[in-house]
């Protein structure tokens, strides 16, 4: 387009901006890399420290051991289940509600919209919420991960806004032909909503995958229902600040795992799925965020 000789200060400016961003990028990536390297090193050797760029004694022993202990396969199963079921069911319920609330001939439409949106700004607070769910018999069940959060109001607003911006001519003819609401929804609206549904499902799946608080509050007494994140959280809390210096290891006992290397490898197990998935959704992020900013 414009061809113009760049002044020295301009070049300097370009390079400075690029350089600062490069440093930032490295700072954001490095912790992941650090733990990856640490988890791939032989645990006792890793305790000596100094592993910053490359494993000194490469080994998969951490992963093999960690997978065999701590009930990890069970926790992974729970995490996968709640991410899959939670996302699918919430997507269905939320998009259906969004559709109904976008229909102009719904009676009390404004009132219903208010009823839902208010809950984004006012919440009962933790204690009444806990007491309510315990009264309803949700304690120590898998469903406490799914049902209370079935309808995400923020996500509902995203989808509703998207539907309202679609040209209504797309389904008016179907309406004239007497198509049922669910036909219009499943056959016409839903396929058109792919971009916004992609955003909502990644938000929802990541939320489910990362969640540990509901498990620790509602399923405190059912360790078999704990997701990976809670196992990891407990591990972090247990070895709170203590390191090998505070807990001298007995010399005659053959220790194959250290808390640090265990933590590092579980962290990798929990993190890698997310890192692999989210870049594929990147092109939808801006759209999703902006929709939310307008109506949220």
């Amino acid at each position: 387009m414009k061809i113009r000789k760049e002044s020295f200060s301009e070049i300097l400016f370009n390079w400075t901006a690029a350089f600062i961003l490069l440093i930032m990028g490295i700072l954001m990536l490095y912790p992941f890399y650090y733990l990856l390297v640490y988890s791939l090193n032989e645990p006792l050797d890793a305790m000596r420290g100094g592993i910053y760029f490359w494993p000194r004694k490469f080994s998969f022993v951490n992963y093999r051991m960690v997978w065999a202990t701590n009930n990890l396969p069970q926790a992974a199963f729970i995490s996968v289940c709640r991410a899959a079921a939670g996302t699918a069911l919430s997507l269905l319920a939320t998009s259906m509600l969004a559709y109904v609330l976008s229909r102009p001939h719904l009676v009390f439409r404004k009132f219903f919209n208010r009823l839902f949106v208010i809950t984004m700004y006012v919440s009962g607070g933790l204690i009444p919420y806990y007491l309510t769910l315990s009264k309803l018999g949700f304690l120590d069940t898998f469903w406490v991960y799914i049902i209370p959060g079935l309808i995400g109001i923020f996500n509902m607003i995203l989808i509703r806004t998207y539907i309202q911006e679609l040209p209504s001519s797309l389904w008016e003819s179907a309406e004239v032909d007497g198509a049922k609401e669910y036909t219009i929804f499943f056959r016409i609206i839903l396929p058109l909503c792919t971009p916004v549904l992609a955003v909502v499902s990644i938000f929802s799946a990541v939320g489910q995958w990362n969640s540990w608080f509901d498990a620790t509050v509602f399923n405190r007494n059912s360790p078999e229902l704990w997701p990976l994140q809670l196992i990891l959280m407990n591990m972090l809390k247990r070895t709170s600040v203590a390191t090998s210096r505070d807990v001298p290891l007995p010399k005659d006992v053959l220790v194959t795992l250290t808390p640090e290397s265990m933590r590092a490898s579980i962290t990798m197990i929990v993190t890698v799925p997310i890192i692999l998935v989210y870049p594929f959704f990147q092109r939808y992020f801006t759209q999703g965020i902006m929709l939310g900013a307008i109506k949220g």
Partner: protein
Amino acid sequence: MLTSTNHAFCPGAKPKQSNRRVKKRMWLLVYVTPAIILTIIFSYLPMFGNITAFQDFDITKGFLKSPFVGFMYFKKLFKDRHALLVIKNTLVLSTVNLLFTFPAPIILSLLLNELKSDRFKKTVQTITYMPHFISWVIVAGFVKQMTALDGGLINSIKIFLFGGESVMFLADERFFLPIIIITNIWKESGWNTIIFLAALSGVDPQLYEAAATDGAGRLKQALHVTLPGILPAIIILLLLRTGRIFETNFDQVYNFINIHIQDKVDVLETYVYREGIQKAKYPIAAAAGLFQGFFSFILIAVTNKLSGKFTDISIW
């Protein structure tokens, strides 16, 4: 808003057709009912459940039959020195957090905006979005690993630069706020650029050309064209964030709190969790939660109104 007309009351519609419309309306109501029931149970019932704060709550008697004690637990709360410290901590933490973390994504998006290579820009974006998708549990794990006493990177650097002993950063309350701020910047500033970058793309390119012909360099253009261009977005977001000043991020704080520092850095969310859920002292914890929720709601309502006003004004 929607422009579709209300078909059911169209003059001249055949009675048979309007019958169908009525039926359709009924079906819509049927579709919306489950969602309403869910919302009432999981959102409105807990709001009502806040009467616990005014009761000598007995879990066997429930919300309805527990005896009322008026504002007793609120009085208790405001006489408790730890609770008062907790309220102060909450406000300090969220204010300081807002002051330091808010500018980060703005600076980052201004820098991203200056990049010539789209490919480099996209790569940086992908990388800086990543921490947003990671849970605070993992971020806390990173910090723990990096600040480990033996061979942790931060301590190694500290000893290399300043000498002396390793420092237990996480067990020292002086480092608590800096850690909260730094991790917050690390985790969310990349993600928060999205909204500013969108605002940036709306700045009129002619303004840059005009500024360039007036002899403004790139830095001056960024400061005098780009920044004013996204100022409305900045102000609205700042207002909305200010509305949340009574709240802290439980997920973050809880993962960085430990027994060494919890008496000094406790905030309302962690206090409510520890007193209510872990120690089962429901009324006092509910009172603390209600206190927070009440003021938070007022502030959110006020800032929302203000931002609504501002957006209207800013249209011209």
